């Protein structure tokens, strides 16, 4: 279990200890291609978390008997550096690290076209350089960006963020103290393009209403993170384009057509921002841009209703078809005793 909920984590002004509102994310920045030798890489900074994700592959798998005949295997290696937490973390892989490696590889498998590379492996290395709560979510966010950077075909990116419960209030994106002293957290991995949840875990005791609110808040947060992921990926190539049009000695005729696409990309990304909201309402049926900037306002209001339906089913019926990637995790939401060993590890790690 997380903390007993007796520690005051919200001040008189209704702000959290680090000054954030309940529905506020920590500042996030994502950098692409930080490693020269990896096929794809990304660095994420989420508050005080610093995590580097490196993707190698698809490549030959050793030992060969572990290869799958019809699709690629995604292997994740989540590791916390010894210096990433206050008390030195033992360098040996802990149970917690193995668990996180597994849930991340399962979540990624749900969005990657693994069938395109049978008999191979895609290796994802996640090195936590600095930990401040919510590293599994930040790692998943970085891993999906690194996979896209490696040129691996995917259905969409996964954005991930945790919701939680502190002093009986539902809040977004827990950091270290809230994670340890709060009364529960729900890490969520969400793919805005597919409107699919690829990772949910639950630790602590939530009422049904609190869980629904938490899920709704996390989906909203994940959608915000998705925009940052998208921008990071596009910026890498847009920057080279900009450089070229500035420093090359070219005639004005040539420069003009180059600037146009840039302006258009901005418009597109705005238009696309609207899609996920609609996507939440009606499954994967986002409308094509052109106009939609006005429409969403009315549609967003319906959002809560649609989302409420989802978690209800998720709680009542265990193996929910919509949560494709990870039916295995769900039992955790119901069996409250199970999480205990994992949490102990978490505390040790911190």
């Amino acid at each position, binding site marked *: 279990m997380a903390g007993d909920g007796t520690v005051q984590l919200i001040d008189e002004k209704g702000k959290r200890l680090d000054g954030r509102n309940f529905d506020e994310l920590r500042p996030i920045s994502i950098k692409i291609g930080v490693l020269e030798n990896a096929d794809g890489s990304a660095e994420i900074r989420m508050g005080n978390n610093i995590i580097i994700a490196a993707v190698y592959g698809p490549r030959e798998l050793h030992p060969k008997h572990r290869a799958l005949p019809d699709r690629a295997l995604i292997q994740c290696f989540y590791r916390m550096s010894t210096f990433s937490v206050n008390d030195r973390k033992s360098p040996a892989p802990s149970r917690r690290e193995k668990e996180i490696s597994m849930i991340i590889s399962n979540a990624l498998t749900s969005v990657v076209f693994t069938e395109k590379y049978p008999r191979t492996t895609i290796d994802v290395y996640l090195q936590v350089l600095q930990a401040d709560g919510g590293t599994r979510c930040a790692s998943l966010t970085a891993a999906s960006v690194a996979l896209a950077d490696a040129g691996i075909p995917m259905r969409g990116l996964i954005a991930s963020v945790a919701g939680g419960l502190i002093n009986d209030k539902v809040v977004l994106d827990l950091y270290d103290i809230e994670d340890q002293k709060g009364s529960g957290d729900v890490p969520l991995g969400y793919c805005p393009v597919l409107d699919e949840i690829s990772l949910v875990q639950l630790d602590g005791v939530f009422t049904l209403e609190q869980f629904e609110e938490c899920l709704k808040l996390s989906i909203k947060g994940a959608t915000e993170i998705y925009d940052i992921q998208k921008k990071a990926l596009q910026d890498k*190539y847009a920057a080279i384009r900009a450089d070229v049009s500035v420093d090359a*000695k070219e005639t004005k005729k040539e420069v003009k057509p180059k600037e146009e696409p840039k302006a258009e990309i901005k418009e597109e990304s705005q238009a696309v921002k609207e899609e996920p909201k609609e996507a939440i309402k009606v499954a994967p049926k986002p409308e094509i841009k052109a106009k939609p900037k006005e429409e969403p306002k009315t549609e967003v209001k319906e959002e809560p209703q649609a989302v409420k339906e989802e978690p209800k089913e998720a709680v009542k019926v265990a193996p929910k078809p919509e949560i494709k990637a990870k039916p295995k995790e769900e039992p955790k939401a119901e069996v409250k005793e199970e999480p205990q060993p994992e949490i102990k590890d978490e505390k040790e790690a911190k």
Partner: protein
Amino acid sequence: MSKIALENHAIVIPGDILAEGNVRYGEGIIKRGDYYYSTVVGLFQDKGDFIQVKSLKGKYVPRSGDLVIGKIIEVGLTNWIIDIGSPYFAVLLANNATEKKFDPVKDDARRIFNVGDIILTKIVSFDRTRDPQVITNERGLGKLRGGRIIEIEAAHIPRVIGKKGTMINMVKRLTRTQIITGQNGRIWIQGKKKEDELKAIESIKKIELEAHTQGLTDRIRDMLSENNNNEIR
């Protein structure tokens, strides 16, 4: 009716919606419901009635008929295992290696190709269920001697070659080098002088970096002819 959502040459990422309705579509795209989604980070190409996304990165996937540059990593009694920079190793059988018939009793496979040799080969078959097969018994194929090898993204090889080879022929002419491009992203360069080779490498690296921009051929020509002028001075 179909509607294209993006401008030509836009940079897309996995999950971006490209079009709606009925369009012919190529690589890098999946259709779900009425919508077409990108699956990779790449350049969106709208050719009127046909759309596709050209990936900007990614491992080389073998295709039969491709010329590739490989490195021998293992020698068997009658076969070689070759690293061609793809997720799968290629296999070269002794009968496909030379024009003469190979007799395992008399002939030694190591005398033909040894570990570490760089060879130019052609892929003859690949279907994902079996490792790709390559041959070296056609004209122009076989061991590459001398020169240098550089590796770039396989996705950018078409850009390095250019339309009907315009780009690569220009680089060859202006740097006075011989260049062989493998579809797997490996390029073999040999010139009479070291400077020529380095200049060719520099221009190919520039092509790779700026592959998704327009007016590249002109910039490369400017760059190379500028270098030439400096030398004369």
